[in-house]
């Protein structure tokens, strides 16, 4: 499988905006987000077989973006730089409730193991349903509920809601 220029341009036009939007929110940096977009789409060009059998490229890219951003957040060299950016972004956080939530989420992500960090992103940033998170993580809805309960415990908060019935 290869991606010709026209097909790649179409994929980029449709999918790059959501990859970039989520990366900017997770990393708090346009420049870092641009690198994530570039890395993911170059990878798509170089190894198109990785998404050849995916029913939803959007879902595939959500997962890939999340992991790429979490890796960057954990990267020791990036951490100080991103923390400085978060501090600068705090000035306007009261003007935008979502910005406030994203700032809190970024702080949280640095302290979580991989699976909990990913579930936090999907639950708080993307506001996915339990079913959607379960499909992305390849686990059961019940396990998603367990992860969110553990997350709430770590945060010292009450779970927002029990695992809802199907």
């Amino acid at each position, binding site marked *: 499988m290869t*991606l010709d*220029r*026209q097909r*790649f*341009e179409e*994929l*980029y*036009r*449709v*999918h*790059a*905006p*959501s990859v*970039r*939007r*989520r990366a900017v929110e997770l990393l708090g940096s346009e420049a870092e987000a641009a690198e994530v*977009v*570039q890395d993911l*789409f*170059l990878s798509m*060009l*170089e190894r198109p077989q990785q998404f050849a059998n995916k029913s*939803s*490229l*959007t*879902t595939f890219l*959500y997962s890939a973006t999340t992991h790429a951003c979490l890796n960057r957040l954990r990267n020791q060299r990036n951490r100080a730089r991103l923390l400085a950016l978060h501090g600068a972004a705090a000035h306007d956080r009261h003007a935008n*409730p*979502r910005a406030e*939530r994203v700032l*809190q*989420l970024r*702080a*949280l992500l640095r*302290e979580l193991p991989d699976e909990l960090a990913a579930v936090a992103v*999907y*639950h*708080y*940033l*993307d*506001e*996915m*349903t*339990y079913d*959607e998170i379960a499909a992305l993580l390849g686990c059961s809805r019940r396990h998603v509920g367990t992860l969110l309960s553990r997350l709430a415990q*770590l*945060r*010292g*908060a009450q779970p*927002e*809601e029990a695992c*809802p019935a199907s």
Partner: protein
Amino acid sequence: MSSELKRTRGQTCVSDLRFDRMFAGELGEDEARAIDAHVADCALCRARRQELELARAGDEHRSATEANALHARATRSQRSPFARTASGVLAVAALAAGVWLALAPARGPGESREELRFKGGHGFGFYVQRGAAVYRGGPGEQLLPGDHLRFVARPRERRYLAVLSLDGAQRATVYYPAGPRAVALVPSGAEQALPASVRLDDVLGPERLYALFCAQPLALEPLRTALAQQRTTFSAPTGCELEQLLVHKAAP
């Protein structure tokens, strides 16, 4: 750790993933309709969809350039990253969004037009950027190759908008949006500039601009094909209202 972190939308709401899948054309018509029905009744999802659509539209202007540059890098091509820009017709300009509209005078340079009117009920119109000058265009506007057009609209109600063109060579092009489907526009009581602009190519002659305001997020390629086939007899599909402007492109 902070305990203030909370989500705003509930489990029955539409997630960002679902919205993005809809924008990417990955959902069936039934699911897209179900989302529309939910959004109509849910202020939180309505606001979020509008945020996502605006962000997406604001990002689309750079897609063609970036995609071409990446493709060239991956294939080690020596060709220009601009070599394949949609038949050379639609060069989506990387203009600083909104800046040149904010500087636009009410009338065109050297023109005596007392009032530049909009045609139709949804207030479809455009601004022209020529060099450093920015002015409002109108029906019959004389344009030059290289001019940038920025479209504006004042929808009466929520509608999915697409802007298409039939140029002097009878070639049909989608000018807005860059994605596969028409993009929602929500009435704000004010004129809204679409978050992208187009650079006119060097095909001279009359050019017809078609703005479709639709109740559903129609796929754009069938519309472009219909325009290419029907040309000046092109009519609005069911559920859409069509507004047209005729402009003229001449050599400098």
